[in-house]
């Protein structure tokens, strides 16, 4: 569904991404992880066409990403940005309905209202529908934005969902609910690309993990193959223990004790 081939991106002489290649299939949740400044957000921006690659090719649904118009992309591709700033005091319901704009003419149809309502219920924010968005807490705002993004591609057969650090500002319950939701959408044939910081969340929910280190792919594959003591040591410069998840077949990362004290 999303195919990234040998993509590179540079500003002046600084290479931010170099030869990144991966492929995300329908029904898959792909997590992008890596240290700060490894190029995760840049990679996501290239995939959403916010930036233009210096080299390589990105294909969506077997067509080059540049062959689509904004309008065509907006009906099956949705992006949840890392930072959400809304300037005017819109109602929560108005904001979620904005996700339906690509599908409606001047006024939303009855079906658009219905989708907005379902999306709000899905993220558990239905009771907040007639509140003013800017008065909500950070985590609540994030969930409303998720509802808007889900509403945008709610009823397309093969949608693609980009989430840039979606768990920021969410409590433990809602972090897991956020990823559970992304997983639920992949099960109906969507593809989700998620930037994550928490390796345990990535290990638990991702079908495929792309581990970036200074602009290059360090490791790619199933969680068991990517989340290893060696790779984490190389990418994050951190010594960890790995334990087995009590009920799932995935590793969990536990940092070792006192590893910074002798370094400084």
């Amino acid at each position, binding site marked *: 569904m999303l195919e990234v081939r040998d993509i590179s991106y540079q500003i002046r002489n600084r290479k931010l991404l170099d030869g990144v290649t991966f492929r995300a299939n329908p029904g898959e949740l792909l997590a992008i992880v890596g240290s700060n400044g490894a190029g995760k957000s840049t990679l996501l921006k290239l995939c959403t066409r916010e930036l233009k690659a210096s080299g390589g090719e990105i294909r969506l649904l077997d067509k080059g990403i540049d062959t689509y118009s904004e309008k065509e992309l907006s009906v099956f591709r949705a992006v949840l940005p890392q930072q959400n700033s809304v300037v005017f005091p819109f*109602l929560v319901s108005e904001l979620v309905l904005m996700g339906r704009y*690509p599908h409606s003419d001047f006024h939303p149809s009855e079906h658009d209202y219905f*989708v907005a309502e379902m999306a*709000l219920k899905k993220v558990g924010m239905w009771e907040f529908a007639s509140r003013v968005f800017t*008065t909500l807490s950070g985590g609540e705002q994030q969930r409303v934005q998720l509802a808007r993004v889900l509403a945008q591609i709610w009823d397309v057969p093969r949608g693609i969902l980009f989430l840039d650090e979606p768990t920021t500002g969410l409590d433990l319950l809602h972090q897991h609910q956020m990823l559970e939701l992304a997983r639920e959408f992949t099960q109906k044939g969507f593809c989700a690309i998620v930037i994550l910081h928490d390796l345990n969340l990535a290990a638990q929910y991702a079908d495929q993990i792309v581990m970036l280190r200074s602009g290059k792919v360090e490791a790619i594959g199933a969680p068991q193959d990517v989340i290893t003591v060696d790779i984490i040591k190389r990418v994050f410069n951190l010594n960890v223990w790995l334990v087995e998840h009590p009920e799932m077949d995935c590793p969990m990362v536990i940092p070792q004790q006192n590893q910074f004290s002798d370094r400084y």
Partner: protein
Amino acid sequence: MDTTATIRSSPTTHQASKSVIKTVINPWLMPALVVTLLVTLIVSVGVGALYVTPYEIGLIIVKSFGYSVEVDSTKEAILLAIRLPRVCLAVLIGAGLAISGAAIQGLFRNPLADPGLIGISSGASLAAVMMIVLEVKLFQTMTGVLGMYALSVVAFAGACATAFLVYRIARVAGKDVITTMLLTGIAINALSGALTGIMTYLATDEQLRNITFWSLGSLGGASWTSVLAILPFTAVALVCIPRLAKSLNLLALGESQASMLGVNLKSIKRQVIIFSTMAVGTSVAVAGIIGFVGLVIPHLIRMGVGSDHRRVLTGSALGGAIVLTLADSLARTLVAPAELPIGILTALIGTPVFLWILFRERRRTIA
């Protein structure tokens, strides 16, 4: 989380169930604005040195459509030649300024922006002041050809030129980023302010009086000719700007999100700038600089109807028309038979309102 909602259910089976989602904050405000505008029109046409009752206004208008009814000929002359064109001009200018203000605030994602920000007003006034002060050959021939409308044409040209300059510089300086345009606008405004200052410094006392009168704004020069001159420009803005409402709503989410939702950023920027320049440029050309309408009206409307531009834009047009018509009635009746410059009135009323909004916003963000 509500687990009863499931995404797998086919959407068609639910289409019949009507959603109870509420998006309209105050459904009666728009009809109320329309009624207020009509009442304002009747009152403003009526008041003045000679009071004309609504009934007489009705008769005079009926007569002007060719029916034979008995009317007072003095009142008829005053109404048709002086008051009606003046009120029409106030409606057009007020609506044009306010709707442009709302659109520009939406485009810049900044509730404190106003049409002056992209250089329209300062460019127009620079051109007009140059025309008044520099009695050069070009301007004199223009006056010969265009007569009393030369100043308006020059001012409009100045407005277009600065808006275009701001847009071009911003594009060269930094891709298509709106913040760059805002900063460029501030820089160009400062520059034309300085140039206008030089002109005023060079001006004679007689010219200075002209400049002052012009830069304070007045609808005193209203005639059917000036109404017809700005009608096409304002009409285009009033018809086309509301069609941008959805895109302006999406812009509130940020430029990148707007483009993810299918907004063509380049096209929306160009359209907002062109339509605002048409509305504001012509109004400055005909009536001088009338401040605060473009800034304050959209705010007041937002408080009433919420932030959805589908209502804010039309609401602002109505609100602007009401406020400017009322302000003009005050301007010509308060110190009759003399006249106050309308720019003074809008600023006198606008400033306290604006400060009140600022403090109110602050209180809300702190609370």
